């Protein structure tokens, strides 16, 4: 019998708890005195910040009374708490403007997740067995402190490593400061769907090492190269808001939108024109467009400016990117290149966007630079309807204590290699949110490397694959139980610092990692110079330094609004970097792993609309949310073009084996017309082993197929540069769960 009917059975036969709120006789329930006075039945809205992705959307959290089961001094009972019921977007927040994406809506389940780690844990079994014993906070902290002291004693501070995700926030700054003060290298940020390439490109082209912000509401023509900017990339909620206004926000004007990609993303589905292109050649197309524009005297080549100068042959009119050549390289008809170019130039303000797969090729940086150059040529940089860079608050100047960065650290693959060849093994590894065991290519052998690390401490709230290797778990609060804050690097035209106090009291015996670090810093034998009582003090100092926009002082106002936003004085802004003198970049053929004969198909993993890279696979709402394009729930699959499928004798729902040079996996097939014949795509996110009851043992993880190909210039993972072979191994076996029956409207009209 399945779980729910079993539950019904137990419930009916009286073994489950009585329903506290429904007037049933509550037999001898113990209640504890609530920690706060709560008006029952009345909802209050509190500010919050969503920290599930880097966008830093502002929340207003709907709080109401609820009866929580708790254990107090060994006795189980109920206590009234002020519980978050629903997350809404803050209407006036400059990033999300009142909207909130599906993931943000589900974020509330993070706090109430049944498999959250409720207290500090100490490993009892072997590594990876995920067997843990409860341990008191004092003992836990003492243990960590002793470890760090031991390192410092040995003068081995360098061998403390901190593994995290890419975020811009006071928290990240504090972590970096902590490491610097201790003398360790800076935090290592690892994410599967990283944007390192684009940041690097923007640094080169515009002196801004950050993700761009697009003024979609004023754009009349948007050309996107593979960026799923309405679904999963950059700041989706902000861009979604802009998209709505671009389409129908201006009387009489409807912005047009062209998407260039080889597998239709949720974003591409909304495009007026969808332009398939050979993987890794998007840059060529961009320059082809530039060529036509320049040749057609629609814009002066000089418009390329600094960004143009980085492109080899720009000044000479990009002779090698005439539409005909572009057609041969990219597979986009010359006539179409001409037309797109003219539309771009004439329907201004127009803007080009690049992100996602095109930058995850061996020549990703070139592609990004090419698109940047195109934007400059169009004159859409820092112009209405174009691309902007959200002014970044310079924390060193808002909070003096934060100045002095830690020395840059090696990227994850280098570290893993170092550990494996024994050249440099971190003695203590602190884990904060990153899950490379699940999200890094097999070739890097991250698991084997981490198993060699003598001592691993995790601050995560869940026992994911990487956390399962840790010796000590110091669970963090959820973002509703503590200071939630973010410094969005994009998504808003004005500078933003999203900050919100804890909406509710902690549900479990968890502790805020920020305060924990400060505490540890104090407790060390040689205390670190971190001049803050607690994280709140740091925030207060930093935010108070910002100019106030009302009669209140900045800090009070920020806490009420859920953040600070407005015009940032130059003194507090991170300055743009000066142009670097480097040789221009030329187009290089994209390199793919696996030879075309043995592995005929390109393999494209993509960020799942529900789980992104998999960090959200533990939320049941997202598991059961039908995927926008396939309507799949609770499953993973590969998408394949009908003609290719026919060639391979594959039918919808069949089970196939996907093999790359790195390994194989078996999953179900969805035959989809929205993908190029030489490509198969698979959503990331599933295939967890130890990631809560909802995600464990569900679906397959495409990362297992990825070859450790890196982007030539930046050395970051080129996750779209693997080739695979697909073979049918079986009939549909029900592992693929679809919500929809039909996928074409004509089906109803035969």
């Amino acid at each position, binding site marked *: 019998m399945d779980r729910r009917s079993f539950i*019904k059975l137990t419930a009916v036969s009286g073994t489950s708890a009585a329903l506290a709120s429904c007037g049933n006789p509550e037999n001898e329930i113990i209640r504890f005195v609530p920690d706060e006075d709560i008006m029952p039945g009345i909802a209050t809205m509190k500010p919050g910040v969503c920290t599930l992705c880097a966008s830093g959307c502002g929340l207003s959290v709907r709080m109401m009374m609820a009866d929580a089961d708790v254990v107090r001094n060994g006795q189980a009972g109920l206590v009234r708490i002020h519980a978050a019921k629903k997350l809404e977007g803050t209407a006036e927040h400059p990033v999300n403007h009142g909207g909130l994406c599906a993931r943000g809506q589900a974020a509330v389940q993070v706090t109430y997740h049944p498999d959250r780690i409720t207290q500090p844990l100490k490993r009892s079994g072997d590594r990876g067995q995920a067997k843990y014993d409860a341990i008191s906070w004092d003992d836990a902290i003492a243990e960590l402190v002793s470890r760090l002291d031991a390192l410092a004693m040995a003068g081995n501070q360098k061998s403390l490593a901190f593994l995290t995700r890419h975020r811009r926030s006071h928290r990240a700054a504090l972590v970096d400061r902590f490491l610097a003060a201790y003398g360790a290298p800076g935090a290592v940020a690892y994410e599967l769907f990283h944007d390192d390439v684009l940041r690097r490109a923007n640094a080169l082209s515009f002196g801004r090492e950050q993700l761009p912000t697009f003024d979609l509401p004023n754009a009349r023509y948007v050309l996107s190269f593979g960026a799923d900017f309405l679904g999963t990339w950059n700041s989706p909620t902000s861009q979604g808001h802009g998209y709505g206004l671009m389409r129908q926000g201006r009387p009489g004007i409807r912005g047009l939108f062209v998407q260039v990609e080889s597998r239709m993303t949720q974003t591409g589905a909304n495009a007026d024109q969808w332009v398939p292109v050979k993987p890794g050649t998007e840059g060529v197309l961009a320059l082809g467009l530039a060529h036509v524009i320049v040749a057609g005297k629609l814009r002066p080549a000089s418009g390329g400016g600094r960004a143009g100068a980085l492109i080899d042959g720009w000044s000479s009119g990009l002779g090698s990117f005439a539409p005909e050549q572009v057609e041969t390289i990219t597979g986009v008809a010359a006539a179409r290149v001409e037309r797109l170019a003219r539309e771009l130039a004439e329907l201004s303000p127009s803007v080009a966007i690049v992100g996602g797969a095109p930058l995850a090729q061996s020549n990703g940086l070139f592609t990004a630079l090419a698109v940047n150059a195109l934007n400059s040529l169009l004159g859409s940089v820092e112009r209405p309807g174009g691309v902007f860079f959200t002014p970044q608050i310079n924390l060193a100047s808002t909070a003096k204590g934060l100045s002095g960065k830690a020395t840059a650290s090696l990227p994850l693959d280098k570290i893993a290699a170092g550990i494996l060849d024994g050249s440099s093994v971190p003695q203590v590894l602190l884990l904060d949110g990153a899950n490379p065991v699940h999200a890094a290519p097999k070739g890097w052998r991250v698991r084997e490397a981490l198993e060699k690390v003598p001592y691993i401490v995790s601050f995560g709230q869940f026992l994911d694959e990487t956390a399962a290797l840790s010796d000590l778990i110091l669970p963090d609060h959820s973002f509703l139980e503590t200071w939630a804050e973010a410094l969005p690097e994009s998504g808003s035209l004005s500078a933003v610092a999203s900050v919100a106090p804890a909406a509710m009291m902690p549900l479990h015996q968890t502790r805020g990692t920020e305060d924990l670090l400060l505490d540890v810093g104090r407790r060390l034998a040689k205390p670190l110079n971190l001049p803050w009582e607690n994280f709140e003090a740091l925030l207060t100092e930093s935010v108070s330094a910002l100019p106030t926009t009302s009669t209140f002082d900045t800090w009070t106002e920020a806490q009420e609004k859920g953040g600070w936003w407005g015009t940032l004085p130059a003194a507090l802004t991170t300055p743009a970097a000066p142009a670097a003198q480097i040789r221009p970049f030329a187009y290089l053929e994209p390199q793919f792993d696996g030879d075309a004969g043995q592995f005929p198909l390109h393999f494209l993993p993509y960020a799942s609309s529900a789980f992104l890279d998999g960090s959200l696979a533990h939320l049941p709402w997202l598991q059961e949310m039908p995927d926008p394009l396939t309507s799949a729930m609770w499953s993973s699959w590969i998408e394949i073009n009908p003609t290719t499928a026919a060639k391979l004798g594959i039918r919808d729902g069949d089970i196939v084996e996907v093999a790359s040079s790195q390994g194989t996996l078996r999953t179900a097939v969805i035959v989809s017309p929205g993908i190029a014949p030489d490509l198969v795509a698979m959503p990331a996110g599933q295939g967890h082993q130890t990631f809560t009851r909802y995600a464990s043992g569900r679906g397959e993880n495409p990362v297992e197929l990825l070859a450790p190909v890196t982007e030539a210039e930046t050395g970051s993972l080129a996750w779209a540069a693997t080739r695979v072979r697909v073979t049918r191994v079986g009939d549909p076996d029900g592992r693929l769960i679809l919500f*929809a029956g*039909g*996928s074409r409207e004509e089906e109803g*009209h035969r």
Partner: protein
Amino acid sequence: MSAVPSPSHGQINTDLLRPLLKTSWKFFAVVVVLGGIVVAALLAWLSQMFFGFGISGIRWPVYWGFYVTSFVFWIGISHAGTLISAILRLVDAGWRRPVTRCAEVITVFALMIGAMFPIIHLGRPWLAFWLFPYPSERLIWPNFRSPLVWDFFAINTYLTGSVLFLFLPMIPDFAVVRDKSTGLRRRIYTLLAVGWRGTPKQWHRLESAMAIMAIAIVPVAVSVHTIVSFDFSMAPVPMWQSTIFGPYFVAGAIFSGIAGLLIAMAILRRVLHLERYLHPIHFENLGKLLLVMALLWGYFVFNERLVTYYGNEPSEMAVFWRTQRESFAPLYWTMVFGNFVLPLVIMGIKRFRTITGCVIASLGVIVGMWLERFLIIVPSLGHKYLPYSYGIYRPQPVEIIIAGATFAAMALLYVLFVKIVPIISIWELKAGDHQPPDGSHPVAEKRSLREVEG
């Protein structure tokens, strides 16, 4: 009427009362087996209530399946008796006499079984009484616009009518049994015989009552299945919204009813050794009737299909092709074979119009008609207007068991009935032998009865 010389009245009594008076262990065995299956179904239903409706195969968007199919099917079967015997009574077809009762019995039991399904298929069966219009402090009544409420009334009316129609002609026979039996049984039958003395007055009352019932029951029967058809034709579902459904369903009902009756008769004839009373001629006549209905049914199906095809309404065509040549085609063509081809061939050729022939044809029809109901309900629901919400229904054990057990239930009730009531109307049979020239019955009846008592 019949070719074979009819048996003496004493013979009739011994033959027809044998099953009542003598009981072999076989009877118990059969009852136990059938009863067991019924209990199994009951258990299945309980577990469905207990674990939740989800253990059935019902799903979004196919919210009706085996249960409603069985409902329509059994209500259809119920048209066997009452309608047939009523019509035959009205036209005073003499050969009907041995047939009528076992037909009417089918009606009553089939109705009882059919009427259970609207309750079985409820999400919350314990609230079924809300269909009953009773005054409550809530001041809420059933929604009289809902075909389901019409069903409720139609079926109740029909059931009451059929029970009366069955009971009235049994009274004289109960009297016979009363006089033949002793002890407890005698007392029971005394009650059942409601003081029947066989006085002319009583005979006259009985006759006129029968005449009235016979006339009254026909429109009721017709209305019942028309209303059942409204359950579908009132909902905006492709292939449901058809004006033809009323007659279509009634025709199908009578069709399946005759088939059911034929099978029942054949079994009775074999088991109770009624060869002397159920002559091939009865089967042949009913077989002819079956043939007629098969043709009529064929006409309706052709009509329904053609109109849909010609109308060419997109959403309807989707369902049309689904049944015609896609996923449901095998079932569809099985139905056509069982309901049309088979009866046409067997009943059409005189040589085949034997008892066995009839039984084979009838089995085909039973299967076919069950499939017909299924094919009306499921393909349409799984294939409504928005392709995104298409769905495929797979019946689960609980539904299969319950649907299957209804046949056991039917058999069980029949066996028990045969145990307590002569399955062939004794007095009618006797009356049948001596058709007085003027054809005024009471005389004949009186005589016959005197002989019975003498």
